[in-house]
C-alpha cells in the first residue's frame, strides 16, 4: 500500500479529475471495489461509519478486503463474520467500551481466521497523512519502547539525522479505496463535513479512489456559497451515493446519534452466542432487505426518530 511514487502519481493522473457528475447507486458503487482491494474506512468508532457502503459490499459478497480504520466498532465484526475482510488494520477494535471486549473480534483473531493488525492511533493517522502528502513515510515519537512496534515489521526506527534522537518511521498508506460518509455533498463530490472530521480528509487524499456516501446530495451552487465548509474536493472523488441515515445504527454529527437500543440488543445477542447471533444478524439486516430503505424500516421508525431527536439536539441549548 506504499507504492512507488511514480506509480502513485500515474494512478492519480489517470483518474477523471474534471468537474463531472458521479452520482450512482449503492450497488454500482460496491461494484467498483474488487475482491482483495485495500480500503480506508472513514469516521471513528460509532461516528460517520460508512455503514451503507459496507452493507452493500457485504451484500455483494466481496471477499478479502484489507480494511483500515482509526478505531473499529461492530462494522469490523460484520466485515469479519461475512468473510468480506480477514484483515483489519486499526488501533482499537471492539463495539465500544460500554459493551466490553468484542466476542467476534476475539473469535476470529484468536483462532487465526482473521488478523487484527494493531498500530497506535496516531500511527494510523500519520500513515494516512503521509499517503495524503505523497511522501513514503512520516517520523513520530510514540510506539518507541513498547511491544506494539515489535509486532510491526512495517514500522522502522532510526536516529534523526539532525538531532540524533530516536524516531519511529511509519510508512504511507495509499489504499485503493476510501469509503467516507458525509452529511452533504454535491453531485461532483464536493463534500462538507460537520463536527468531528477524524482522519477522513487524509484518507480521501491518500486513496486512489474515493467513494462518498452522503445523507443528501445538494447543488453545486450551495457548495459554492460556502466553499470554506468543503473538506474533500471533487477532484479526489470517484463516486457519490445518496444514503439517508447512511451511518445508522452509528451516528452522523448533528443529524442523528447512535441507535443505542439496536446496538444494545445486538451486543446482548452477540455475548450469548457470537457465531450464531452474528450470522442471524447479517441475514436479517444485511442479506434479506431488498433495499437500503427496507433496511431502515427494519431499524424502525421509532428508533430512527429518537436518534434524530438526540442528534439534532447538539445544536440546541
Amino acid at each position, binding site marked *: 500500500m506504499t507504492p512507488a511514487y511514480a506509480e502513485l502519481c500515474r494512478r492519480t493522473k489517470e483518474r477523471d479529475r474534471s468537474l463531472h457528475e458521479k452520482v450512482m447507486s449503492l450497488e454500482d458503487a460496491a461494484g467498483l471495489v474488487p475482491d482483495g482491494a485495500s480500503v480506508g474506512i472513514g469516521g*471513528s*468508532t*460509532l*461516528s460517520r461509519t460508512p455503514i451503507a457502503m459496507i452493507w452493500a459490499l457485504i451484500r455483494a459478497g466481496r471477499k478479502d478486503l484489507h480494511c483500515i480504520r*482509526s*478505531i473499529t466498532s461492530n462494522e469490523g465484526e460484520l466485515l469479519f463474520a461475512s468473510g468480506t475482510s480477514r484483515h483489519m488494520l*486499526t*488501533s*482499537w*477494535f*471492539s463495539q*465500544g*467500551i*460500554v*459493551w*466490553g*471486549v*468484542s466476542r467476534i*473480534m*476475539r473469535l476470529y483473531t*484468536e483462532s487465526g481466521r482473521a488478523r487484527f493488525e*494493531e*498500530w*497506535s*492511533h*496516531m*500511527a494510523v*493517522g*500519520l500513515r*494516512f497523512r503521509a499517503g495524503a502528502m505523497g511522501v513514503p513515510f512520516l517520523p513520530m*515519537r*510514540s*510506539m*518507541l*519502547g*513498547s*511491544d*506494539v512496534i515489535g*509486532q510491526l515489521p512495517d514500522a522502522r*526506527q532510526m536516529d534523526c539525522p539532525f538531532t540524533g*534522537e*530516536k*524516531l519511529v518511521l511509519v510508512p504511507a498508506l495509499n489504499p485503493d479505496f476510501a469509503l467516507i460518509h458525509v452529511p452533504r455533498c454535491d453531485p461532483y463530490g464536493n463534500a462538507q463535513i460537520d*463536527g*468531528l*472530521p*477524524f*482522519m477522513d*480528509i*487524509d484518507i480521501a487524499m491518500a486513496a486512489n479512489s474515493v467513494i462518498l456516501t452522503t445523507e443528501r446530495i445538494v447543488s453545486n451552487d450551495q457548495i459554492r456559497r460556502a466553499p470554506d465548509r468543503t473538506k474533500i474536493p471533487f477532484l479526489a472523488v470517484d463516486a457519490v451515493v445518496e444514503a439517508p441515515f447512511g451511518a445508522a445504527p452509528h*451516528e452522523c*454529527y448533528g443529524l442523528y*446519534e*447512535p441507535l*443505542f437500543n439496536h446496538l*444494545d440488543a445486538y451486543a*446482548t445477542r452477540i*455475548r450469548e452466542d457470537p457465531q450464531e447471533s452474528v450470522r442471524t444478524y447479517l441475514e436479517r439486516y444485511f442479506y434479506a432487505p431488498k433495499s437500503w430503505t427496507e433496511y431502515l424500516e427494519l431499524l424502525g421508525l421509532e428508533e430512527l426518530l429518537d436518534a434524530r431527536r*438526540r442528534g439534532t439536539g*447538539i445544536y440546541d441549548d
Partner: protein
Amino acid sequence: MTTDPSTGKPFARREQHSDRHAARPPDLTPMNPGPAAYSASELLAVMSARLLRDGQVVFAGVGIPLLAATLAQRLHAPGLTILFEGGVIGAFVEPGKLPPSTNEQRCTHRANMVLGSTDVLLLLQRGYVDIGFMGGAQIDQYGNLNSSFIGDPQGPRTRLPGSGGGNDIASLTQMIVAMKHEKRRFVRHVDFITSPGFLAGAESRREAGLRTGGMFRVVTDLGILGFEERSRRMELQALHPGVTVGQVTANTGFELPVAADLTITDPPRENELAALRNLDPDRLYTA
C-alpha cells in the same frame, strides 16, 4: 479510545444512553463507616479528579478518566482544558449525556474547537498536554500498561481491544491511570507493553527514546500509587479510608514498597459525590 476504565463489564441499558433519565435510586455499596456511601468506581473518579489542577491541559480517555476530568472541571478546576482523541479541545461534557466513546458528538459539547484525530494526538507530541489520563486493564511494577493480549501475543488466551490512543498518550506525556486494584491486574510483568510506563525501570524509558512523560500516579479503589524517583518502581503513597497496607499488598502481584510518608486520603465529600452523580445519573461509568 484508551483502555478499560476499570468497569470492564458490559454495561448498556437504554436509559444510560438517553437523556431521559429514569429516576431510580443508585445501588450503593458502603465502603467506609462515614456518612457518605460510595461505590468503588465513584471512589476512583473522586480521587483521581483531585489530582488534576486548575489550568492544566488533560488528555482524557473514555470512562472514569472522562468523568473524573469533567468532575474536576465542575469543582476545583474550572479552567481545566479537556482533550479527547476524537478531535476535541476544551470540552464541557453535559450531565447525563456521557458519550459512548471519545469519538461521538456528545464529546464536543461546548468545546472550543473540533479538529482531526491525528491533529489532536499531535498536540501531545508538540508538548501542549500536561496530563494523560486513562484506565488500565493490566499494569506492572514499572507502570507499563497492557490492553492488547492476555497470554502469549502469538497465540493469546484473550485478544483485547488494543492501544487506541493509549500508546501515544503514555509515550508523550505524564500519566494518571485509574483502575481497579486486583492481583490479576497488578502483575510483575505485563504480557505485552501496549502503553509504556517506565519500561524496565531506572533510565530505560529515556534510553528507549521516550524523552518526555512517564507515569505520575496510579489511582485505585484501595489507594494511590506513585513511582520511586530512581528505580521507577511503583510504591504505595496513600491509602483510602479504611484500607490497610496488607489489603493493598494482598491485591498486588509484585512486591510493593510503601512510601515513608504514607498518607490517608480524605473520603469523598458530599459535594463531590453529588456532582459526580449529577454527571452520571444513569451510572454508565460508575457502576
